[in-house]
């Protein structure tokens, strides 16, 4: 039962990484939105997670926590920063993207607050929480 719960948790993580990766590819290659610099950094953190979680699922390895958490944490921080830029809490000038697509530019705005970096933030936050839960329940059992 416990094993099954751990497995299901990993499965959900993999699905989230899949949706986030395919979704970002949909925006860039189908809808032709050019990704800005910060988007690229978040993509670098998100894309490997698909394969890392997939391998962990097939081999059922709980140690995946150690491999995935650094990517998730870095991605989460970048997406937090990106959202602060978009919400104008951090000024655009302070962001590293001066050339090409400005990071403060909003391609989509669903329901008045859901932008692409916000979707990324949701994905990384969910992954971060699930991995924390995973760690507490299945890795560091006390």
């Amino acid at each position, binding site marked *: 039962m416990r094993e099954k719960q751990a497995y299901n948790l990993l*499965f959900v993580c993999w699905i989230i990484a*899949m949706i986030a990766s395919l979704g970002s*590819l*949909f925006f860039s290659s*189908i*809808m032709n939105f050019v990704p800005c610099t910060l988007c690229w950094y978040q993509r670098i953190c998100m894309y490997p997670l698909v394969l890392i979680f997939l391998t962990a*699922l097939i081999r059922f390895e709980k140690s995946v926590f150690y491999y995935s958490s650094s990517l998730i944490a870095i991605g989460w921080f970048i997406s937090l920063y990106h959202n602060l830029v978009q919400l104008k809490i951090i000024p655009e000038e302070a962001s590293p993207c001066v050339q090409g697509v400005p990071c403060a530019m909003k391609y989509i705005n669903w329901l008045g607050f859901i932008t692409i970096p916000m979707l990324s933030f949701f994905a990384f936050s969910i992954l971060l929480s699930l991995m924390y839960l995973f760690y507490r329940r299945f890795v560091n059992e006390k």
Partner: protein
Amino acid sequence: MKNKTIIIGGSALFLICLFLIGGYFFKKSEINKYSEEVEKNRQKLLTEFAPLYGNKDAKVEIVEFLDPECETCRNFYPAVKKLIAEFDGKVKLFVRYAPFHKNSIQAIQILEAARMQNKYWQTLEFFFQKQPEWGSHQKPQPELLWTYLPKLGLDVERIRQDMNHPQVINQIETDMKDLKTFNIKATPTFFVNGKPLPTFGYGPLREAVKKAVEEAY
């Protein structure tokens, strides 16, 4: 274990199919919307000063937005010529400009001045042929363009005067304005009898021309 494999594989397949099918329908609706947009401005697609290649009475007209400094335009050029030859007298080409590179405008001005000496196509072909030299991305050398002109038998002095002719400037400005009208962001962009291609490529271009010829003749 077998169950798990099915679930993982099934989920992956489902998400990827969702992506592909969603992408297909999204692109299709985009191209439909775009076609309507082009149809509304159809009369702007042709200008009286666009260079014409082929039989002027041909019923099928290709409008190509090209850039003399663009590599893909260079690669497409022989194929487009072959296509027009293949449908012997039934297809013509109008060239319009999309100056997306740094030295495109200068090259276009020279080309238009060469047209006044009736050497347009030879010059365009030569510019395409020598494009890796004068239009290299690492080290463009637009001054090389001038060294080609005597080889083509052009009067260089007259080119220098004609390239700033108000008609040439007007033509380039009109083309650049229409890049916005038709939302053109890449070269070459083709329109066959006023219709954009469903996807970019030589195959789709040939397909569209073939269909238009069948409809017109």
